């Protein structure tokens, strides 16, 4: 189990690596990958019982990335966890690469093809139902975007999860409050989100989605017996790069050379500070 400091360093390195991959590909969903990468860091390094060696084990925990567009964060974390070589990240979106611009099962460690929004939670309900019927103890985690929650299919799945009392199912909302057009509250307001999930029969916890310790605490165990759990993670789109933060332009913008250099410099400064050596 990595220490808090080791985990914080990983988050910075993940940000650096995913920006490199996006820059190399000339494509990617920069802002959303930066907003959810701390969540993925905690899941894959502290919570999920999965590894390349157990990737086909029926009892493994399952992670579904319903907000599939933030796949660069997922690929980066999976490469770090040894599911495929780090160098493959530089094939992102290339001709005949298995690293498509949204998740596919061609990539080791990925459970389901996603990318069209509003699909992951229902699949998670199916997996969790199978675990319940088999009396298996694996947990199922689904990462959703807050903009994504405008898709009505999420709420069909939310109803079913509560109806079947799937307490080993956890939905995590990367609540970065932005979507491609602008503020989620202006495009189609999803608030009060906690009250909505609670009204649908879910246990709800709100956390700082960049606080690794708080995320660990929220995700370590089901939130409540007999109810599915919704972890609403307050995040900042573009987190970690000052000029990308909280700006819808970075939904799927690719940094130019100067922006890229500046972003890496900021992250390297943060890495150096955390390592205790002056930049």
């Amino acid at each position, binding site marked *: 189990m990595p220490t808090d400091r080791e985990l914080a360093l990983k988050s910075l390195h993940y940000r650096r690596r995913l920006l490199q991959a996006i820059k190399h590909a000339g494509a990617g969903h920069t802002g959303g990958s930066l907003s959810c990468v701390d969540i993925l860091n905690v899941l894959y390094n502290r919570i999920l019982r999965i590894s390349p060696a157990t990737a086909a084990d*029926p009892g493994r925990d*399952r992670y579904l990335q319903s907000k599939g567009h933030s796949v660069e964060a997922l690929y980066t974390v999976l490469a770090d966890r040894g599911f495929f070589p780090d160098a493959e990240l530089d094939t992102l979106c290339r001709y005949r690469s298995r690293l498509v611009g949204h998740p*596919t*099962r061609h990539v080791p460690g990925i*459970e*389901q*093809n*996603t*990318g*069209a929004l*509003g*699909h992951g*939670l*229902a*699949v*998670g*309900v*199916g*997996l*969790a*139902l*199978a*675990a319940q*019927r*088999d009396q298996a103890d694996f947990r199922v985690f689904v990462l959703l975007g807050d903009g994504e929650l405008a898709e*009505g*299919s999420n709420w*069909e*799945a939310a*109803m*079913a999860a509560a*109806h079947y009392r799937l307490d080993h199912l956890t939905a995590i909302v990367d609540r970065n409050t932005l979507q491609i057009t602008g503020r989620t509250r202006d495009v189609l307001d999803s608030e009060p989100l906690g009250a909505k999930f609670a009204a649908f029969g879910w246990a709800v916890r709100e956390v700082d989605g960049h606080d690794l310790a708080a995320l660990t605490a929220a995700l370590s165990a089901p939130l409540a017996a007999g109810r599915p759990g919704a972890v609403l993670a307050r995040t900042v789109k573009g987190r970690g790069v000052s000029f990308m933060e909280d700006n819808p332009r970075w939904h799927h913008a690719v940094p130019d050379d100067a922006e890229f250099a500046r972003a890496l410099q900021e992250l390297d400064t943060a890495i150096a500070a955390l390592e205790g050596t002056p930049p």
Partner: protein
Amino acid sequence: MSAPAPGMYSPAAAATAARLGLKLGRPNLEAFADALLALARADRKVFAVTSDSRGSGKLGPFGQALPAQIVEVGIAEQNLVGIAAGLAAAGKTVFAVSPACFLTARALEQIKNDVAYSDQPVVLVGISAGVSYGALGSTHHSLHDFAALRAIPNLAVLAPADNWETAAAVRAAATARRPMYLRFGKAPVYDLPAAAPFAIGPARLVRPGTDVAFLATGETVVPALLAAAELEARDGLQCRVLSFPTIKPLDTAAVTQAAQDCRAVITVEEHLVNGGLGEACAAVLAQAGLARRFRIVGLPDEETVTGSQADIFRHYGLTMEGLAQTARALLDRPAAGPP
């Protein structure tokens, strides 16, 4: 034995069926439900998922016998397919059962992404397909499903003709471990004569002949067979009848062989004439360079006439009499007079 659906077969068609020794079977829906229950009793991994469709899917006995193997999702077809994909991802053999009209339109994106693209081996079961719901109107008709699902990679499309093909298709689907769509109706159908064995893919020769080839699928195979018998009795024509329980992947060899052997080809389906079996066969023949007299019999691109399934079949010529008349016209023969 069920009584014939009122008006599904004219007295002349029923007489032809009797002359052929055909017995009226049950609705394919019931053959499906029985086959699925037998499979599920033998294998705990077999699951049925329903969207308030337990009754219409004849799955009441399944639910009573095997409550741990049925999942009810309520009136929510998108959720039905997504949950089915998740169950399949956990190793279950999943049959997602819902009226074909809702399953294949409301949940089309889940079929495309969660099942076919993700390669989750769900069997999507479209019940009461085509115009089974008759006068309930076009909200309840599935005349688009072949076309929509043929355009999705990694999805087999099946439409069995009779009870035997339906049960065989259910068993084959359970072991195939691949994304699949299976559709059928709810009216009693005649049992076809014993023919070739069943497998996913091949067409089945129901009746030999070299004058006209009827290439039919689903519950329209029976009227095609009756038309072939009628054309032999009244016109002296030897008509080939092929059942295509699988529309995708299509048995292209059976299609080209029929065109090579026969003077005319007629396709028959309970589907719009756009994008179904007929256009699939037309594409095969055009690309093989086989020009034959050719007709696609299905429902035209218009608002469907109001009426029972039998009324609609009669209106659009999906009957023994209508298909025989189409064959005569295609061969420039005079219309038949009274027998």
